[in-house]
């Protein structure tokens, strides 16, 4: 009887997880999704605690307590700008749990492990261990603890691949003959080392795609744990996780116009960008002041704001919202143009602007907003660069050629807020800055937008 209740509870938990993701398909139902997920997790945990295998609760309570003591403050105090790091850390924890469980299972049952279990165990521990160190490295790079630039040396790919091949080979050997338990720790160590080496050659800016891939790996290793423990809700959750990470990395790679293979093999062969070959645009750049800009804005009817990574760096989202409110109050229509890979994480701009209280129906996706630019009197580019670069449309040699962009250059006039003429993530020049209709407003995004707000609120509403 108790077993039946447990089986039904796990099924219910699986269904609730699916509903949780389904309800994320609209902001209206999304919070209900969180509740569904929470209830599902609660049910699964209670059902597990009822199981006869569990004989003592002391260490469980210790674990739950310490975990909550770390998790709650993390959730409450984490600034929204630190989301990419947090995500990396979370994959590290998930992978850690999977490999700890895998290692325990191995030593509990060795040498009487059947081939299938050993296969699933090998998969779980290999993926879990490499995802653990890989995610920690990614966290370090994003958090700035480790140097963000890629570390590359000759023969790197060959070395990494051989290391992986050895680890996989030993794991396969273990599957064939599970009694050679001395091999097991070697596999674990090799996988841990491989995780580190995998991330070393990848630049900090390429991390988001890698993180999504690691998400998918962590999910798969969780699913493998489900096979080992013969637990179906683990398989369901692992598969959902794996699918999500995989889809997000595909979406990112498409929006960045990177090949799918490039993504599948994660780090290997990271694109080397050489800005050198390119001809330098010699047209002059027109720099303006907040005063001039405010004068143009005063008479605009439609203004489109294009936020990018720089807005996140400068934490300028609140000032941007003030600017938008001010313009709206003056009767100007304001829209936000959100490029799918603006920022450094899928949905980055949306979260920041939501945090600053910008209503989400004002955030318009690329495909929809592009037809509005010709109607716009002013497009204000705030810390965005690559996602507005017209080179993507016509310059065949450019690393971003073919990437869909926000067609800012179709607007009547353009204002660009950034600190210098430095390139963005892709490391290439942006001809937009040299166009006649463009006015550059150099400076930190928060300061410049603050200046605009100040100027605009000086002049009365009735202009």
């Amino acid at each position, binding site marked *: 009887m108790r077993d039946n209740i447990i089986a039904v509870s796990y099924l219910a938990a699986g269904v609730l997880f699916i509903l949780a993701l389904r309800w994320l398909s609209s902001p209206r139902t999304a919070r209900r999704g969180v509740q569904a997920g929470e209830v599902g997790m609660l049910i699964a*945990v209670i059902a597990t605690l009822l199981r006869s295998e569990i004989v003592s609760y002391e260490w469980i309570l210790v674990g739950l307590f310490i975990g909550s003591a770390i998790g709650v403050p993390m959730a409450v105090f984490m600034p929204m700008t630190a989301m990419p790091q947090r995500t990396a850390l979370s994959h590290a924890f*998930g992978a850690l749990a999977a490999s700890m469980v895998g290692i325990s299972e191995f030593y509990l049952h060795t040498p009487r492990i059947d081939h299938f279990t050993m296969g*699933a165990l090998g998969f779980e521990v290999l993926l879990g261990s490499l995802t653990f160190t890989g995610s920690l490295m990614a966290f370090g790079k994003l958090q700035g603890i480790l140097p963000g630039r890629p570390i590359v040396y000759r023969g790197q790919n060959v070395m990494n691949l051989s290391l992986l091949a050895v680890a996989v080979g030993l794991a396969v050997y273990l599957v064939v003959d599970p009694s050679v338990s001395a091999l097991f720790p070697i596999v674990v160590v090799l996988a841990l080392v491989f995780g580190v080496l995998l991330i070393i050659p990848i630049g900090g800016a390429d991390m988001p795609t890698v993180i999504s891939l690691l998400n998918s790996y962590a999910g798969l290793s969780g699913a493998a744990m489900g096979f080992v423990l013969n637990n179906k809700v683990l398989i369901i959750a692992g598969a959902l996780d794996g699918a999500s990470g995989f889809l997000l990395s595909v979406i990112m790679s498409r929006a960045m116009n990177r090949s799918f293979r490039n993504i599948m093999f994660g780090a290997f062969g990271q694109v080397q960008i050489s800005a050198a070959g390119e001809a330098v645009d010699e047209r002059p750049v027109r720099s303006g002041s907040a005063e001039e800009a405010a004068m143009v804005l005063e008479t605009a009817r439609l203004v489109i704001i294009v936020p990018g990574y720089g807005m996140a760096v400068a934490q300028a989202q609140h000032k941007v919202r003030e600017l938008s409110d001010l313009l709206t109050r003056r009767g100007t229509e304001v829209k936000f143009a959100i490029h799918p890979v603006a920022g450094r994480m899928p949905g980055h701009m949306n979260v920041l602007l939501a945090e600053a209280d910008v209503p989400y129906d004002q955030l318009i996706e690329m495909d929809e907003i592009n037809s509005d630019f010709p109607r716009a009197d002013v497009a204000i580019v705030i810390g965005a660069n690559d996602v507005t670069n017209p080179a993507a449309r016509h310059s065949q040699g450019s690393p971003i050629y073919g990437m869909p962009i926000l067609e800012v250059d179709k607007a009547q006039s353009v204002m660009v807020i950034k600190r210098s003429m430095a390139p963005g993530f892709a490391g290439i020049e942006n001809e937009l800055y040299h166009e006649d209709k463009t006015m550059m407003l150099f400076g930190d995004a928060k300061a410049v937008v603050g200046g605009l707000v100040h100027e605009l609120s000086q002049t009365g509403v009735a202009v």
Partner: protein
Amino acid sequence: MTISNLEIGLYIFVLSAFLGFEVIRRVPQLLHTPLMSMTNAISGIALVGSLLIAGAHRTTLSTVLGTLAVIASTINVVSGFMITDRMLRMFKRRDERKE
């Protein structure tokens, strides 16, 4: 694990992965960041496996590793759901803003 367990696991894995793709491709860009933290939270289901190891009290090694695993997954569960909710609370429509 018997071969039939493997078979059953494969069925469940394949169906869930398919379902995952269908469901997740319908999540709008707007919510991609909450989606990431939601899947983090769900991946905390590794807690189930961790509890079984930590609570079974079989060897010292397994209890230690199990407890570590419980800590790691609890962090994911707790912070994952809380952060997702915190983020989603911030998403408001124009008409909901002035409340």
